[in-house]
């Protein structure tokens, strides 16, 4: 293969059918792969009548044209489905080895439909595709399952759910390669609803770039850029993603105690520096990645594993008012083992802490209680006690107790580690996120904090819509090819376009890709509109809109969303209700969606 393998594996667990169908290459060129192709296929397969946890929902696992090409960070893959947490379109992607290995089986995409009568697993090897009994694995943890199925670093790779997915926890993750996660939005619950415990892949096909000379040149140039960037060559390898903990805290944008404050007095104790000094065993890389940002850590009690990433350290740390690094790290490990999204878990626990402190729920739970983390996570996975509420995510939980305003979420997806009051553009990213409050779909950390590509005023609102839109579109490109966002901290979309051209032998310019990104973003928007979402869902929690930050570098600021939203719709060519105009859809090649979008 050169780029696309040209095949989709289509499995229906209701009738055990296994089909190989050709990939529509025109569709592939328009939507690239990964998240884009997932969105396009989901548009046709899952309409508004489908409940997320019903057999009619589908899981679409998709790689991109550069996957397994050996280009730097070409290991990632995507899952698309309808989210049981948000009811929006969902995409989530993950690194490690599984994506690369799946591509080596000779498929671009795996679609899983229906529901098995009893727990099953799928195995895709050179011997063929099999649906196997997995009743003996049901109830086992992620680590146990991964080991039982013979995970072998770059030869045989396991993706599975843990007890959280089996118990239809709405914040359950799908885990691959033991500790990597398709984390956000509850994909694990969708997999659980299908009685699908695991997917194991072994392949040997190669993604051999068409233009070898140009591909080698791009590898060389990309390596130069990754080396030249202090972020990718020094900061991330030395301190991991939590290297930004102190940076974000210093500017007053680190949400603390369920976003009641924007600076955490214990930030230094949970920072990248602290992780390196106190618990780091070694750093590790995903397949074909020179950055090595993964942390292998060991706590005082001897527990060892991957993490914590910045977001996880924040979620169980500042968000919960906890500065005990060991407790945070073990909470991260337990989430990995039970198959839970750490951002939503930590955010939801922080929400529960505030609900309890304010008397909405009868509990002695308080901010800062590090000793409660493990039991809360365990109870969430098994839906026991208060865990049954936590398993529903912060919005449903807070709503049940009469205080939905205490859920720090957008479209019911819990917000990550940046306070929009100190990063106005990030607020617009959250509010307009197609899968809800997500930093991965247009992160403003680069321009608003790290000066990538140039530093912009983080408190300004005029002109932010354009920058946010460009970052959303480029994130959609990266998620569709599929590259890693951290590579994009040093390497521009222009490079990705030239690498894609070398791999496929077809010419793609930077702007071809940016238009593809806009196409993906717009189709996701249309999907949500078809589901009944409106402009009223493009908002932020009341606290962020109306309660100014009380002290620190962001003192006095609220999230000034209204003018940015107005400018954003105009920039994107949408009407005042946030509906893409027909001419925009035609321009993007989304003609097929016009009728349904305006139904």
């Amino acid at each position: 293969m050169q780029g696309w393998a040209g095949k989709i594996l289509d499995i229906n667990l209701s009738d055990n059918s296994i089909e190989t169908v050709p990939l529509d290459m025109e569709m592939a060129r328009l939507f690239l792969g990964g998240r884009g192709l997932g969105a396009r296929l989901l548009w046709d397969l899952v309409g508004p009548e489908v409940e997320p946890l019903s057999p009619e929902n589908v899981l679409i696992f998709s790689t991109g044209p550069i996957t397994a090409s050996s280009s730097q960070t070409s290991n990632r893959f995507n899952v698309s489905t309808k989210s049981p947490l948000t009811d929006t379109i969902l995409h989530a992607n993950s690194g490690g080895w599984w994506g690369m290995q799946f591509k080596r089986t000779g498929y671009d995409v795996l679609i899983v439909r229906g529901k098995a009568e009893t727990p099953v697993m799928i195995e895709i090897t050179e011997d063929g595709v099999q649906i196997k009994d997995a009743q003996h694995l049901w109830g086992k943890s992620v680590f146990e399952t991964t080991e039982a199925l013979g995970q072998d670093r770059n030869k045989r790779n396991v993706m599975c759910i843990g007890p959280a997915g089996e118990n239809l926890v709405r914040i359950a993750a799908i885990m691959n390669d033991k500790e990597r996660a398709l984390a956000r939005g509850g994909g694990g619950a969708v997999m659980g609803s299908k009685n699908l415990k695991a997917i194991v892949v072994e392949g040997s096909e190669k993604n051999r770039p068409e233009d070898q000379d140009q591909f080698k040149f791009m590898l060389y140039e990309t390596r130069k850029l990754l080396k030249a960037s202090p972020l990718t060559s020094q900061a991330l390898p030395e301190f991991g993603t939590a290297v930004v903990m102190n940076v974000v805290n210093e500017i007053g944008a680190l949400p603390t105690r369920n976003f009641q404050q924007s600076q955490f007095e214990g930030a230094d104790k949970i920072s990248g520096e602290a992780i390196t000094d106190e618990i780091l065993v070694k750093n590790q890389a995903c397949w074909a990645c020179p950055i090595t940002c993964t942390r292998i850590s060991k706590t005082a009690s001897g527990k060892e594993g991957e993490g914590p990433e910045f977001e996880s350290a924040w979620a169980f740390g500042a968000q919960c008012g906890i500065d005990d690094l060991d407790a945070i790290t073990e909470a991260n490990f337990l989430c990995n083992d039970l198959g839970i999204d750490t951002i939503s878990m930590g955010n939801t626990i922080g929400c529960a802490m505030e609900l309890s402190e304010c008397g909405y729920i009868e509990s002695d739970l308080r901010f800062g209680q590090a000793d409660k983390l493990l039991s809360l996570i365990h109870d969430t996975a098994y839906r026991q006690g208060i865990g049954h509420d936590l398993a529903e995510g912060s919005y449903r939980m807070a709503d049940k107790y009469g205080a939905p305003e205490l859920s720090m979420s957008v479209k019911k997806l819990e917000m990550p580690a940046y306070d929009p009051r100190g990063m106005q553009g990030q607020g617009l990213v959250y509010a307009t996120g197609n899968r809800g409050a997500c930093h991965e779909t247009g992160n403003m950390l680069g321009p608003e904090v790290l000066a990538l590509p140039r530093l912009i005023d983080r408190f300004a609102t005029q002109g932010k819509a354009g920058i946010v839109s460009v970052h959303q579109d480029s994130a959609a490109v990266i998620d569709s090819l599929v590259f890693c966002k951290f590579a994009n901290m040093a390497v521009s979309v222009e490079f990705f376009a030239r690498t894609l051209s070398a791999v496929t032998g077809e010419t793609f310019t930077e702007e071809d890709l940016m238009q593809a990104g806009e196409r993906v973003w717009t189709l996701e928007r249309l999907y949500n509109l078809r589901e009944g979402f409106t402009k009223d869902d493009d908002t932020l929690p009341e606290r962020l809109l109306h309660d100014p930050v009380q002290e620190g570098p962001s003192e006095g600021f609220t999230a000034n969303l209204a003018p940015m939203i107005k400018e954003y719709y105009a920039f994107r060519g949408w009407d005042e209700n946030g509906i893409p105009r027909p001419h925009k859809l035609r321009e993007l090649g989304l003609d097929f969606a016009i009728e349904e979008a305006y139904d």
Partner: protein
Amino acid sequence: MIDERLYEEFRTIGRDIFVTGLTSSHGGNMSVRVGDKIIIKRRGAQFGRLKRSDFVETSFEGKDSGIVRASTELIVHRAIYEQTSALAIVHAHPRTAITLSLSRDEIIPIDNEGSYLLRKIPVISVEMASGSSEMATKISEALRGYKIVMQRGHGCFSTGQTLEEAYAWVSALEEVSDIILEHKLLGEPMIEYRKHSDAYARW
């Protein structure tokens, strides 16, 4: 229409472009895209002495009365915004780059920084040198694959997410061009120090 922050950015970058000799007193122009509007320097305004009254707001797609006062190159700016994801454009007249453009179809940096930042700058010939639809089409098409392009004998167009970014490419281009010219004047053979440098021509 234009907030204090954006005005300050226009003013300081305009001044820097002039004082560093990247354009003459009244030549060149720059713009940003905000929502569905383009904010562009007024025709004939001095680059180094921009005032609030020196900016024109015009629509991104349709025509309006803003075009009466806007830069002659508005048609090019509009085409660039339509064809690319640019949020800011700088058009300047860097004299060494213009000199090189008279005798070559591309400018390939020989210095390390220029190679790292730009790799190659294409040179485009246009019959109608200013404000023509031919120019708009050719320049905007070239900018789909490059950050900055030269129009032979006229000047450069560069894009960015901010004015500062677009300005940075112009500044880099002129430094690249100065070094090429000075090395040529020196007349000594170049000792190649860059691996894969022959591939820059294919960039």
